[in-house]
């Protein structure tokens, strides 16, 4: 996939590197590190404006469809029309669009300045937790099946209950593998008048529809609660869990109000060999940052108007795509989808604007005892996880600038190594070894008079 990048894309990053005007930028995407970086990762897209919320739950479940089931506490009763089956490709697109990115620059010949850049992005895909499911009515347990729907390939129940013990028993009897200690958690949600959205796959419908994967479920509701229930998930005591929350809002960046939100380290120069191992770099860096913050924070990985990007890790989403992800406040209008060329359409602006925030959290029950609560802020400043590779110029020409350049190069390489070590916790000596020897200055062993009359 090769694309030409815009001029501005390079300019913003080149300030430190080159004071000279850059007039011949071109760049391309290298292959994406399309790996399953994080196991047990969930992805949720939340579009929200006012009290209206559309939540899209990604479904990367890879097992037998008949074994799939989810139980999600929801703040309100849901009618059939409030439930929808979305498109996985849109979540993947949003994921790619907001992913931390690698930007690559080639130092120019100090004697003749020119440079190129490259960009790549990591994407994360991971299966959602799941359990088996079957259904049976059991009024004596105090469980009320408020509604049953079939939407797309899913059979959906909206449950409420008099008491949590009955609900836990009912779920277990019906084949849901409820984790130990689920009853008190279910109880606290019931006491808050929350319902339970329970979905399993209708094999017959799935066969009719012909999909060989499970599409994401979407629910639309109106509630002042801007939160994501994570407590049920933390009961599955298999270590930590990974969660990506993508929010689409009108005003600006979203943050958590009950856990500190911090920015992932960004805009740093790292050794060029990381290019072939960007996925491992990102994963190690994230782990190191989580440890540094004592696993008590939510990380901001991207915050930007969806109308543009700089650099773009993927095409910006069109209005139609955003609408399908739940953005209900966009008025009808031509989508600003870019078609080839520099992928940097201008911001939509105004009332129809959509701001995307990507939050990444690694959590367990001990460090994240309560559900995530969010707020939308008025912060429209841009942020992205962006890591810079600067390839050294390897030419052999000599000029005073080249000599100065070579002098600075070893300092720069050492700084890059130390940055990488501090970000990832990798061994500094190993990093230096992988960096290899720097480009040496051309050793000109000719006698001075030979150089004089060459």
């Amino acid at each position, binding site marked *: 996939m090769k694309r030409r990048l815009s001029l501005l894309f390079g300019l913003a990053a080149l300030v430190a590197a080159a004071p000279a005007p850059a007039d011949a930028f071109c760049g391309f995407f290298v292959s994406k590190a399309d790996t399953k970086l994080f196991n047990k990762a969930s992805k949720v897209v939340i579009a929200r404006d006012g009290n209206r919320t559309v939540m899209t739950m990604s479904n990367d479940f890879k097992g037998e469809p008949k074994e799939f089931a989810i139980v999600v506490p929801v703040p309100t009763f849901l009618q059939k029309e409030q439930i929808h089956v979305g498109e996985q490709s849109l979540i993947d697109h949003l994921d790619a669009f907001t992913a931390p990115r690698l930007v690559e620059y080639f130092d120019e010949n100090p004697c003749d300045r020119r440079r190129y850049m490259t960009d790549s992005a990591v994407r994360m895909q991971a299966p959602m937790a799941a359990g088996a499911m079957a259904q049976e009515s059991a009024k004596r347990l105090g469980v009320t099946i408020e509604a049953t729907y079939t939407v797309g390939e899913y059979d959906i129940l909206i449950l409420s209950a008099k008491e*949590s013990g009955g609900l836990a028993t009912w779920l277990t009897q019906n084949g849901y593998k409820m984790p130990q200690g689920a009853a*008190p958690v279910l*109880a*606290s949600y019931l*006491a*808050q008048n929350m319902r339970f959205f329970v979905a399993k796959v209708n094999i017959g419908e799935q066969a009719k529809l012909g999909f060989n994967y499970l599409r994401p479920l979407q629910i639309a509701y109106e*509630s*002042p*609660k*801007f939160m994501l229930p994570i407590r049920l998930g933390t009961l599955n005591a298999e270590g930590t869990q990974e969660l990506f929350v993508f929010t689409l809002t009108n*005003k*600006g960046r979203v*943050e*958590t*109000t*009950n*856990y*500190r*939100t*911090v*920015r992932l380290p960004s805009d740093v120069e790292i050794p060029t060999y990381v290019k072939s191992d960007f996925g491992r770099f990102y994963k190690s860096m994230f782990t190191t940052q989580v440890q540094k913050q*004592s696993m*008590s*924070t939510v990380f901001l990985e991207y915050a930007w108007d969806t109308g543009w990007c700089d650099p773009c890790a993927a095409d910006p989403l069109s209005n139609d795509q955003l609408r399908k992800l739940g953005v209900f406040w966009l008025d009808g209008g031509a989508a600003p989808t870019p078609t080839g060329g520099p992928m940097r359409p201008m911001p939509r602006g105004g009332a129809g604007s959509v701001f995307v925030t990507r939050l990444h959290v690694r959590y367990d029950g001990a460090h994240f*005892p*309560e559900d995530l*609560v969010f*707020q939308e*802020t*008025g*912060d*429209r*400043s841009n942020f992205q996880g962006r890591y810079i590779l600067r390839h050294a110029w390897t030419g052999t020409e000599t000029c005073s600038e080249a000599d100065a350049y070579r002098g600075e190069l070893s300092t720069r390489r050492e700084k890059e190594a130390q940055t990488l070590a501090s970000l990832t916790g990798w061994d500094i000596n190993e990093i230096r070894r992988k960096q290899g020897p720097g480009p040496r200055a051309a050793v000109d062993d000719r006698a001075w008079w030979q150089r004089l009359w060459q």
Partner: protein
Amino acid sequence: MSAVPHPPASRFGDPRYYQIAVLTGLLAYGTLVLEFDVRRWQIPLTLAVALVTQWACSRLWKLPAFDPRSALISALSLCLLLRIDTLWVAAAAAVVAIASKFVVQVGKKHVFNPTNGAIVLMLLITPAAWLSPAQWGSVAFFAFLMACLGGLVAYRALRSDVALAFIVVYAALMFGRSYYLGEPMTIPTRRLESGGLLLFTFFMISDPRTTPDHPIARVLFGALVAFVAWYIQFRLFRTNGVIWSLALCAPLVPVLDRVLPGRRFAWTDAAVLPLLRRTPSPAIALERIHVS
């Protein structure tokens, strides 16, 4: 977080210097270690605008002298709490905070805590203003430190009764709710360990200029602010319950002062603070309060 408008309450001098030092320390810690979302120039701009407004109002209201201390405290508090997308919001908040002390008065006592009033007004008029209640994280050590430092300031201001009434009632409501819901007690404990809540308790609601004069009224007021804050946070599911609550309850203070009149300067009570025998007479204190 406004003026602590009285003369030196101890041999350590005017407690406002102490408060300025603590707030400055917290701001340094917040910006340097916790990476608060403070915009570049927000701090110098807020400080400058607050001081200029204080100076201008001192001239307009013909005060005998320009006293920068309470203005500095309001400005530092704004920097600690208010997050902005455009700089004019910081400037406007500073003007509102300081000017409100002079303009919105009942019986020579300003109604709104300057920082609180300014923040609430900004939240109401522009989306470019917000608060980040989780910015302090919930590190227990830090919470403890803040409680100690804040407690000391509140004690010196002799308004620890309102702070204690607030935090006791608020904690009781939080634990009560979690108990009712069957949540583990780590949830309310964690919520109480919030740096933002402690900052509010020991630095904002304990502001002696805007709390009721009578001790019983203060305890009632603290409890009411706690209840309204809890209601906003856990019944209406809105953020920043304590900030909204204090602004909503503030207009009740003049009413409480009328129903339960008290001495405006409780710190002159020698039984409460024997050290004050060495302080100037109440008459002098009264004069000073109008200056601040």
